[in-house]
């Protein structure tokens, strides 16, 4: 085998890579082959991919090369750029499982809008990335297929639920990937793996063809090596889609222009809000120190710091677990063994007296197909929606959600962006939190508010710390913006990345590539 060093890493951005493919400095097939070799080399250890589509990727790359050779392809913004897709997103002809046994073998008959847009821009889909089952989890340990490892320390989790998407970028298995974010599922793994990941404003990106978890919170977004790469990918995948009734019929900002803009808005200084409640008890002091240094970096550039308060933060996790599980219990009722996925039929003699064989089939199919965390959330969601419980739980949670959104709106009246830690803790060890669902849920406290209010949020690396003799582990800083101001989030992130080089670091475990 040739060197498994990623050819892609010799290009500083995906824009530069696409431009090299368009001008025939490098072929899309070469790039794709190099990534496939790298996946073959490392992924048995890492577990990022649930499916690698070698043939599909090479033939898509060949099509791009043919197009370029024939004098076309000038408008392909992602010409030959290899991309991994979270296995929560439908890909025509390529198995899509949501990390669940219940969908094993499911081959979607169509592409999600985001996938169709990426393909149309010349992106090459390498395969499907590992995740917590139905995106329910913060460690990737709820994948029904295999765990995914953190490339910075193989004994630790990559975060979740888009753990494969973050780990694959960190390990240079692909320069960009897609994730989904319902309560932090792009930003938290981005933080734990030392990459940049963004959840756009709710409605900016189509959810058509994206497997639904909690429809009022779910949003698709890109993960990449830098804010510039994330902006470039978002530009291609975002925008209005009539096939998604919640898609925003609004013009997309020029995200790339935002990443080239200065830190400060025209004519005044950037105001960074620091929510008191996000620097409170439970935050690892080593994480806090890195985040404070990132804030100081921008302050030295002239940004003004503003203390703000989001007093309902302490209720965010409770709201989230009532709203998200209620929506999930409804969304996941479609997995019943009738139209797709696995079916478990009762055998003769197994049918309880008076039970319909159809209903018994539903119950057995769902019990066998869903893992423990998914079953727990379906049960909780069903319980809180039951008549007699609805007002006390779901309705009250939705009312407090309104107040959370108002808190954010008040904070943004006084600042342009909020800057906070992404995760209160460092990447934890595999198995460390698995048996305590509530403690796992509480680790999402800084990312959930953004989903409840529908805001744009981004996480990027802001330092590294060692933990009990471990290799250096990445720490993420989160930027949150007002609704529809995805551009200012990217603007501040790119400005920070011009001043620092945390985002360019690579895990040393993989630096010594065999030749």
């Amino acid at each position, binding site marked *: 085998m040739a060197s498994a060093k990623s050819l892609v890493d010799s290009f500083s951005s995906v824009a530069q890579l696409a431009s090299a493919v368009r001008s025939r400095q490098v072929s899309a097939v070469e790039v794709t082959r190099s990534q496939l070799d790298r996946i073959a080399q490392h992924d048995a250890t890492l577990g990022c991919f649930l499916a690698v589509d070698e043939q599909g990727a090479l033939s898509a790359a060949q099509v791009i090369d043919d197009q370029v050779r024939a004098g076309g392809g000038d408008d392909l913004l992602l010409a030959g750029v290899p991309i991994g897709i979270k296995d929560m997103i439908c890909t025509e002809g390529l198995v899509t499982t949501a990390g669940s046994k219940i969908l094993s073998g499911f081959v979607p008959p169509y592409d999600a809008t985001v996938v169709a847009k990426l393909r149309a821009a010349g992106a090459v889909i390498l395969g499907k990335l590992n995740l917590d089952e139905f995106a329910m989890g913060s460690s990737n340990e709820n994948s029904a297929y295999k765990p995914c490892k953190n490339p910075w320390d193989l004994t630790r989790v990559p975060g979740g639920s888009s753990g494969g998407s973050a780990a694959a970028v960190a390990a240079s298995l692909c320069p960009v990937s897609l994730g989904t974010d319902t309560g932090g599922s792009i930003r938290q793994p981005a933080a734990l793996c030392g990459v940049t990941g963004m959840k756009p404003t709710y409605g900016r990106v189509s959810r058509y063809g994206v497997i639904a978890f909690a429809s009022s919170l779910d949003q698709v977004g890109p993960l990449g090596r830098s804010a510039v790469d994330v902006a470039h990918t978002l530009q291609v995948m975002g925008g209005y889609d009539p096939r998604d009734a919640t898609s925003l019929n609004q013009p997309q900002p020029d995200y790339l222009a935002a990443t080239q803009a200065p830190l400060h808005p025209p004519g005044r200084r950037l105001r960074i809000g620091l929510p008191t409640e996000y620097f409170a008890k439970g935050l690892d002091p080593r994480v806090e120190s890195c985040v404070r240094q990132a804030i100081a970096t921008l302050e030295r550039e002239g940004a003004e710091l503003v203390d703000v308060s989001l007093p309902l933060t302490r209720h965010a996790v409770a709201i989230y677990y009532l709203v998200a599980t209620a929506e999930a219990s409804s969304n996941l009722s479609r997995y019943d063994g*009738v139209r797709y996925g696995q079916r478990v039929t009762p055998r003769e003699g197994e049918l309880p007296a008076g*039970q319909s*064989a159809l209903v018994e089939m539903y119950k057995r199919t769902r*019990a066998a197909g869903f893992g423990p965390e998914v079953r727990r959330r379906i*049960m909780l969601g069903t319980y809180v929606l039951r008549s007699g419980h609805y007002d006390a739980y779901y309705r009250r949670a939705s009312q407090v959600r309104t107040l959370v959104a108002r808190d954010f709106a008040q904070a943004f009246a006084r600042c342009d962006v909020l800057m906070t830690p992404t995760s209160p803790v460092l990447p934890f060890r595999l198995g460390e939190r698995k048996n305590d669902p509530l403690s796992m849920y509480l680790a999402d406290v800084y990312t959930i508010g953004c989903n409840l209010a529908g805001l744009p949020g981004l996480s990027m690396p802001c330092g590294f710390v060692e933990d009990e003799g471990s290799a250096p582990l990445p720490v993420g800083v989160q930027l949150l913006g007002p609704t529809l101001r995805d551009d200012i989030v990217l603007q501040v992130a790119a400005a920070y990345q011009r001043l620092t080089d945390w985002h360019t670091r690579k895990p040393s475990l993989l630096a010594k590539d065999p030749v």
Partner: protein
Amino acid sequence: MSGHTPPPRISADEIRVTAEMARLLLSESDIPKLSDELSAILAYASSLAEVDVTDVPPMTHAVPDHCRLRGDVIEPHISRDAALRNAPQRESAYFAVPAVFAGSDEGFDSEG
């Protein structure tokens, strides 16, 4: 407002009824575990009772956009065959399922 009382523990019977609604077959050993876990999560969530929500409308969606209607026109769509391709069991142009009504002899897995 404070001093709310945590919700009572979810009983085994409540778990059974909920599982029936969710169409999940539980084993007897699952029931006490789920009862513990759900009770703990709801006890935690009961802090929401402290928040004054008088006259606060519920937020059911992140976008205050009203439901959009689309035109009643035929758009490109997948074929019937493609739609049936993932079905665990089909008969000609239909999804096939076990007997719907209790007491029917049909619908067992005869290969078992």
